[in-house]
């Protein structure tokens, strides 16, 4: 069981989920002795939280492929295997991202028609969307597939749209391609071709290309890009947010007037903080495989884990993977294209 605050916060999050999700059963995979010491200290439902022993764990700073090879009983490998064997429906992990994605990619099957899986991330925006008034838009891929073809980008659009429909209760999510201009001809060849293909995809609400500055504005509900671009964008957005916070702290220290000004803005800042609170979304879903994997942030607290489990449960109840599968079948029927997993394909992960 990985994560910066594992196992305590992970177990606490699972314990809370066992109380708030009456239909769900949660399997904690990790050191049974450690887990057995933590659970009795927490409110939980003992009929809905079970322990599955795994003697090894991939540390956060280990190289994914090497670590998985050296640790056959790593909790992420065991957990992915349990889901593959039908002992679970979805997997949540706050551990090493690369190792997690690699483990599930090796144990699970791609949905027919999907050539590459995509890791999606949510980002707070100005606009709200869906029945839930959701402030988050979805960006995918943010690191599972470094080089994406035009067909991969179309697949990501289908997967992102299905996810937004289910989780944000957004009946017709606006899907856009991330490029260096809004014009159809802008961007690398794969993006230009994807634009053409997406225009034909009438089942999607494709609004065209968006630029980086449109992401925080919330122009699109689902932003599609390659894993390389998505990862750079996501980390830059995170960096900007952190820098603004640091600058506010700096201003706070500088003089009394600024301090008073920030104090006056406190309620608004608190509201902004709650709106942009990533923990309420739990984590980043890996889409395209026959089961759902939610990659929770390494720093996840119990609350983030509870919410990640809730999202996983909701996605399972709403048959997210089935929904993506139907989308891929429709695409295949329309284009006569049936995606196949390329020999030797494995998720290339940016960490």
């Amino acid at each position, binding site marked *: 069981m990985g994560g910066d605050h594992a196992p305590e916060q992970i177990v606490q999050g699972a314990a809370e989920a066992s*109380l708030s999700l009456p239909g769900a*059963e949660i399997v904690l995979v990790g*050191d*049974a*002795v450690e887990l*057995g*010491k933590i*659970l*009795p*200290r*927490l*409110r*939980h*439902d*003992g*009929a*809905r*939280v*079970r*322990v*599955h*022993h795994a*003697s090894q764990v991939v540390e956060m700073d280990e190289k994914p492929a090497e670590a998985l090879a050296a640790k056959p009983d790593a909790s992420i490998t065991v957990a992915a295997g349990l889901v593959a064997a039908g002992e679970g429906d979805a997997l949540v992990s706050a551990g090493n991202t690369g190792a997690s994605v690699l483990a599930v990619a090796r144990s699970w099957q791609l949905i027919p028609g999907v050539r590459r899986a995509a890791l999606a991330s949510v980002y707070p925006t100005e606009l709200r969307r869906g029945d839930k008034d959701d402030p988050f838009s979805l960006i995918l891929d943010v690191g599972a597939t470094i080089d994406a073809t035009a067909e991969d980008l179309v697949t990501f659009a289908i997967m992102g749209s299905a996810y937004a429909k289910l989780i944000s209760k957004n009946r017709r999510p606006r899907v856009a391609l991330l490029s260096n201009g809004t014009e159809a001809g802008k961007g690398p060849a794969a993006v230009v071709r994807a634009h053409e293909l997406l225009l034909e995809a009438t089942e999607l609400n494709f609004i065209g290309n968006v630029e980086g500055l449109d992401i925080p504005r919330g122009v699109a509900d689902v932003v599609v890009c390659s894993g390389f671009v998505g990862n750079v964008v996501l980390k830059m957005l995170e960096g900007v947010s952190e820098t603004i916070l640091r600058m506010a702290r700096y201003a706070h220290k500088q003089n009394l007037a600024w301090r008073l000004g920030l104090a006056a803005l406190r309620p608004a800042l608190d509201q902004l903080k709650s709106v942009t609170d990533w923990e309420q979304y739990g984590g980043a879903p890996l889409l395209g495989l026959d089961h759902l994997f939610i990659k929770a942030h390494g720093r996840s607290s119990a609350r983030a884990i509870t919410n990640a489990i809730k999202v996983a449960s909701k996605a399972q109840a709403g048959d997210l993977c089935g929904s993506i599968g139907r989308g891929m079948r429709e695409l295949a029927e329309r284009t006569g294209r049936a995606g196949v997993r390329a020999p030797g394909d494995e998720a290339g992960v940016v960490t």
Partner: protein
Amino acid sequence: MGGPKHVFRWDLDKTYLRTEFDSFRDLVKSAIETAADKQAYPGATSLLRALGASDEHRICIVSGSPSQMRSVLAAKLALDGVRYDEFVLKNNLRNIARGRFRALRAQIPYKLPALLESRAGSPPAPHETLFGDDAEADAIIYCLYADLLTGRVPIGDLERILGAARAYPDEIARTLDAARRAAKGPVVGRIVIHLDRRSPTMPFRRYGSRLVPVFNYFQAALVLYADGVLSARQVLFVALEMIDSRQFDLSTLATSMQDLVRRGRLDREIALRLAEEAGEAAASGALAERDDLPPFETISTRFRERLRQLGAAGPLGWTNEDEALDYVALVDEEHHGRKVRRRGR
């Protein structure tokens, strides 16, 4: 005819019956519900029926519900086919008439003398098993009752404990008298606390291994099977009632068993023996006409698998078995906790 060999003392609300009384609205609802409206926890009815099936067993119910509810509660028990030998309820009208408002909510000054008087007033049994919940002070009351009977808590200390529990002087006198009259001995072998609030189990460890907090009645049945009180067939019927409630399935029952083993409340060997014996019981007809369930071999395999998933991890050990309980501190803590909960509502 000899006396009973085993007495089972049950609380009702939140132990047998799913009752909400956290708000005034809940109290009103509970008071006007008909017998048919009242819901028992899944498995509790089969368990109580199984315990009441033997002539050597005596079922005593001591509940904090007002005595005005006797007819509806008795009707509910009759509807469920549960027999009982004694049924004690709280006379709250008398408390109101005498202006004793503290007594309306008090648990220890009401329940402890009721338990002691029950034992003093009937042929003493060599074994007792007590059932309560985590909503009030059942764990303290039952342990205190058990320790008074063994002499671990001298009667001289009882007055101080009852004082901490804010008992009225006549309640103290009544309890002391009942404690002197009750037949003594190490009779309370098991205390089962139903975790209605889903309280953490760790704090209950201070009461020792005789007290087992359970999340559901399958766990209670497993504990009683280990104690030699229930047969595998009877455990199977508790499980079937829970499955029929649709709130549990084979997986959650297997997880419940794993939870008990992990907490050191059930030996792996006993769990495995139960799987074998239950298989024999199923083969002899207990699961006849249950084609909604997989073959028993599959069920048994799932239960064994759930134990195997724990690896070689041993259960939590007991370190404080011989430590005497400080009941005054426990009563103070419970009183404080109740005040905090009231403020939080």
